[in-house]
């Protein structure tokens, strides 16, 4: 056991414990904050793997913006307990358990049957430049289409959220 492994296991432990906290904690804001911790932990694993750009974007987009929006929505609803905020809470517990177990079984199967081979570590000193050239070169159409799609989603969300012209 050497240093890098210890770092990895610490990051993994933080991520998993925080992820468990997201589903297990009774207070909805606590679970949302655990979600932030999960995102940060995942970002740490990205850094550990050398994908620093993805790691930073993970923090910027997920931990910094998306999770904050989730907490924002929770705060606007002003209910502290998960059971209060979700009317279907606790309904269909057993069905959920069965499906979760099926899913876990599938994952274990796929992990077991995949032949894990160690690839050669890529040269990652200039990952950002490569990403830039790929986004603006080979995949520019896909990139732009995704951007237009997101724009449409944002406009749609605004129109839906405004609802009837109340004011």
């Amino acid at each position, binding site marked *: 056991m050497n240093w890098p492994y210890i770092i990895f296991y610490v990051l993994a432990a933080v991520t998993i414990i925080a992820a468990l906290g997201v589903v297990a904690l009774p207070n909805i804001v606590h679970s949302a904050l655990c979600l932030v911790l999960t995102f940060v932990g995942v970002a740490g694993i990205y850094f550990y793997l050398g994908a620093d750009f993805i790691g930073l974007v993970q923090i910027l987009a997920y931990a910094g913006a998306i999770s904050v929006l989730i907490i924002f929505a929770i705060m*606007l*609803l*002003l209910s502290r307990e998960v059971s209060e905020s979700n009317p279907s809470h606790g309904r269909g517990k057993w069905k959920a358990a069965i499906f979760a177990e099926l899913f876990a079984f599938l994952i274990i199967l796929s992990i077991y049957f995949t032949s894990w081979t160690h690839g050669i570590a890529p040269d990652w000193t200039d990952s950002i430049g490569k990403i830039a050239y790929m986004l603006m070169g080979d995949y520019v159409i896909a990139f732009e289409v995704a951007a237009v799609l997101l724009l449409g989603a944002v406009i749609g969300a605004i129109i*839906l959220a405004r*609802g009837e012209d109340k*004011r």
Partner: protein
Amino acid sequence: MIESDFITINVGPQHPSTHGGLHAETVLDGEHIVDVKVHLGYVHRSVEKIAESRTYTQFIPYNSRLDYLATHLPAMGYCQAVEKLLGVTVPERAEYIRVIMAELSRIASHMLFIGSLAIDIGATTGLIYCFRDRERIMDMFEMTSGQRLIASYMRIGGIAEDLPEEFYPAVKSFLDDLPYMLDEYNNLLTGNEILQARLKNTGILPADKAIAYGVSGPNLRASGIAYDIRKAEPYSIYERFDFDVPIGSKGDNWDRFLMRIREIEESAKIIRQALQDLPEGEIRAKVPRIIKPEKGAEVYHRIESSKGELGFYIVSDGSEKPYRLHVRAPSFINLGVLPLISRGGKLQDLIANIATLDPVLGEADR
């Protein structure tokens, strides 16, 4: 669709921007104001009841504590009401000095208005500038009466003492510096883009609503009604002075703010004329030591205070104490319009609305 809940917050009575013990129970939908309810009485001293157990002279100092920001105005109104009850004529010199003091009080009050409005919308520096200049008026009050904030300088039939020698240069240099002071306010506040965006088109009070709600003073004139008791029904010697009644157009916060700046100029005009014409002579009419108006006499006397129509309704039963004394407090009635102008605005507008309505809670609660 998810419906969000309303939040009810209590703006005051412990709040930095409510000018004393005002309590505005505010229902918010996010930042939008759904409703405002005004609760009063946190500084109620039952002044009207106290008046019934004080002689007419003893009650004078209580007036200065009504509108403590324009200390001479309520005292002047009260003394004139009693004089009307008695039929006393005040000597010329006393009238002029009263007018000078009243207009200085008005300037002091309006300067405080500008300063507190500035700090209420976040411009901390504006407050200090206005207080620095208001300090000079306070110094002049100290010269004349020995008291800075709650001077009881007015007496029934005149004033307490003649002006001291050092008062004249002080008031002259103050009047000379006033344009520069106003320039400074205009540079710091009036011309400021953010301040204009905050005040323009917020807290709109249409003229008809303003009259129906009994709003008076600069707040009424900001809505475009040229009604100033100094002009409409001149008391004291106001008919001798040449001054304008500035009016606004829309009745929004911006108009109410500008109104104060322009009224400072008009008041300065009056003081200049009064100083020029100031006659020599007596400062107090012969008034009996024990004042006993005739039985059943009553009077409703109103003056244009810095906040609006300040009225005194006094009923006498022939004794040396008023039988009933009612103060028509402009701040009290002006506050009634706060829910109307705040509804539909933003939380930050509410703060600006309270500031531009310029309530003095000592007067509103009495």
